[in-house]
């Protein structure tokens, strides 16, 4: 498994969030998560404009083997979704931290990221 980019924060349920320079946030699932799931064949993304609370379900990801909920690491309003995943969900397998992002939000309270795991702490969770 590749190195985890240092600017990400994680939920122990394998979602990441990146704070962008403009104050928005991008959300996706970890390399470890895509590896556990195997070949991803379907995603259901949130609606633009939808408000999502931290640690509630925001999306669905399904591999050949199983369906899994994706939880939002922080609260906010969805501003953009990665629609290309609807036709090419396998991008999540090949590029979980870049091209395979799920959605972007305007966060309601950026300090929520303080409650999240650092890349080092998240790596330890994955080893358990």
């Amino acid at each position, binding site marked *: 498994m590749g190195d985890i980019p240092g600017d990400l924060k994680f939920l122990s349920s394998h979602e990441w969030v990146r704070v962008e320079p403009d104050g928005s946030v991008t959300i996706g699932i970890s390399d470890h998560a895509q590896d556990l799931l*195997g*070949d991803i*064949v*379907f995603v*259901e993304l949130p609606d633009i404009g939808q408000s999502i609370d931290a640690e509630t379900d925001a999306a*669905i990801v*399904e*591999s*050949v*083997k199983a*369906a899994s909920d994706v939880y939002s690491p922080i609260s906010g309003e969805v501003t953009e979704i990665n629609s290309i995943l*609807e036709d090419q969900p396998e991008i999540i397998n090949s590029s979980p931290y870049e091209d395979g992002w799920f959605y972007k939000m305007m966060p309601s309270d950026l300090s929520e990221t303080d409650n999240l795991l650092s890349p080092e702490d998240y790596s330890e969770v994955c080893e358990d």
Partner: protein
Amino acid sequence: MIQPKNTALHSSHINLGAKMVNFAQWEMPITYSSLIEEHHAVRETAGIFDVSHMAVFDFNGGDQIGFFEKIFANDIKKIANENKALYGVLLNEDGGILDDLIIYHANDKFRLVSNCSTREQNFDWYKKHAVDFGVEVVERMDMGILAIQGPEAMKKILAMNEISSLVENLEPFGCMFSDEHLYARTGYTGEDGLELIVPNDVIVNLWEKALAEGCTPIGLGARDTLRLEAGLNLYGNDMTINNHPYESNLAWTIDMKDEARDFIGKNALLKVDKEISQKIIGVLLKDRGVLRPGYEITHEQGKGIILSGTYSPTLEASIGLARVDQGHGDKGQVMIRNKALNIDFVSPRFLRQGKI
């Protein structure tokens, strides 16, 4: 926690980087690389599976034909004078399916292969009924099973000097023994190929030879998508002890032509009203999503439930098997996360000879 059992190929799987899972108390490979790539390898060239977790039984002495006539809903006489395999089900007195299995007959010997999760139940059942026929039942924990499947499977097998001369004349469903080694032209993928039911001490060598001939190792994940595309039932998903064969797409395995034959479950089956039974049918999801077991179905004249569901790498769409009320027509709907999505009802055999 009970320590899971390992097959003779356990270290081979680990060395190939397989992702291992606990499957009915056996630690088995679920994938080696990508499930979808493994699936395509079997449809396009050839793959090799370790299915040594399946239960193997041999039989000694007594009236073995009488024994199988009693416990097996298909009629063993179909293969009693041939070197062939016969698929069918084991029923209880109520006509409920205890398991599905294959009985092989060759060189005057029978060998039976049934599911892993029903191993103890079946062994007890066989022993209980074998007594009346003076038959000894032997559980062959020393046997493993390799399946080599795909359009190029036979070509690759014939290049393996160890076994080529033994298997070159096998017809589909044909089988032969060489000592304790059983070679059969059977499988669970809808493709041509062989199953090798052989002692554990030769398994690793045969596995390595097959890999050297270019067979791709295939995990249990792709085994499931392959069998579902071929419309083959999985015991525990598509039928259980609470189902009779007529509502499980298995009427073809019930043989009552010999009216004098009294098999376990026959009386119960004679009372089933086939006109009103539910049935198993294939389901193709027309909208985006993936069918999963337990999803509810509705159609014009009734309802149903998804038994097995997955993504079909060959059809690039989601497919499933469902048990539905009769009168279903061609179209229906499935509820996925509180949304009604469109489905077509189709033959459970999504592919024939590996083709759409």
